[in-house]
């Protein structure tokens, strides 16, 4: 799989993520990491960028010998949410770059790729676990308050 169009097609045909490692495995299987390298050698894969808090390899500056925490999910809800958080993070960090480098079309494309994937994951999450975002509310009963608030400790 060499082009971004192949990647889009692959993503379009893919509708189910149940394993927390799927995203990373997928990156390897379908060559997303290679796709990204075509865009910009300076960008991490979404998982690495997310746990580091930094998508940009040349800006990454670790503290002493601390390693970033590995994040993991205890159930399907957390797993989906983590994948959404990873993509949202990647999009945010790329957006800050694009705010002052508007002409980098490769980075715009990368942003769009993640955005599309995130929308799909949000759709899956919201169908199963309730709304993340009031704008896309689509239930007949009021569920905004019946999944956990983000600050609650999950046991």
């Amino acid at each position: 799989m060499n082009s971004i169009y192949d990647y889009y097609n692959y993503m379009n045909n893919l509708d189910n993520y149940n394993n927390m490692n799927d995203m990373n495995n997928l990156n390897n299987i379908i060559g997303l990491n290679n796709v990204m390298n075509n865009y910009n050698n300076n960008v991490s894969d979404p998982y690495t960028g997310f746990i580091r808090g930094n998508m940009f390899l040349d800006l990454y500056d670790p503290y002493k010998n601390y390693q970033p925490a590995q994040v993991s999910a205890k159930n399907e809800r957390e797993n989906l949410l983590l994948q959404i958080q990873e993509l949202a993070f990647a999009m945010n960090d790329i957006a800050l770059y694009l705010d002052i480098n508007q002409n980098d079309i490769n980075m715009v494309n990368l942003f769009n790729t993640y955005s599309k994937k995130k929308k799909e994951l949000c759709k899956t999450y919201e169908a199963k676990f309730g709304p993340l975002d009031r704008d896309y509310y689509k239930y007949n009963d009021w569920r905004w308050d019946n999944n956990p608030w983000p600050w609650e400790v999950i046991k």
Partner: protein
Amino acid sequence: MWKYEKKLQYPINIKKRDLKMAKYLVTQYGGANGELGAAFRYLNQRYTMPDEKGKALLTDIGTEELAHVEMLSTMIYQLMKDATLEELKEAGLDSHYAEHGKGLYPTDANGVPFTVAYFATTGDPLADLSEDMAAEQKARAVYENLINLTSDPDVIGPLLYLRQREIVHFARFKELYEYYKKIELNKKN
């Protein structure tokens, strides 16, 4: 307009109560170099940025800082959850309890309440961006102090993440600062 998404920017799940750490961490909520000050410093400065780049960057970083306010609040809430009065007294949080019960309240680590003086805005883009760069560096240094004060991996993980965000924000502000500086120099020549 702002939109709330029912998720944290980065997951936080602190299982061990640690009131001393809550008392230190609160400074990154309501202290001089904290996230609340950062969020509104940038969102307040953005109106007088000279072009689209500045308006976009300050809006987006300011918005991200609001997500960091939520992360810090979550950490403080979880570190203090289910504390007894005895434990609060022992950690020196009895005066916090007297004023605010078990509620959150933005102060620095010495209990000095948040003030809008932290917004530090001049209306001059170069001065404001220099302020922002310094603010990011100071916040990075405070995150390092906080990391040194704990051994709980549930606390260190989010702190390392937040520290790294200061580094990225500093780099973006610097990039914009240098771009504006170049324009100014070109005008003079």
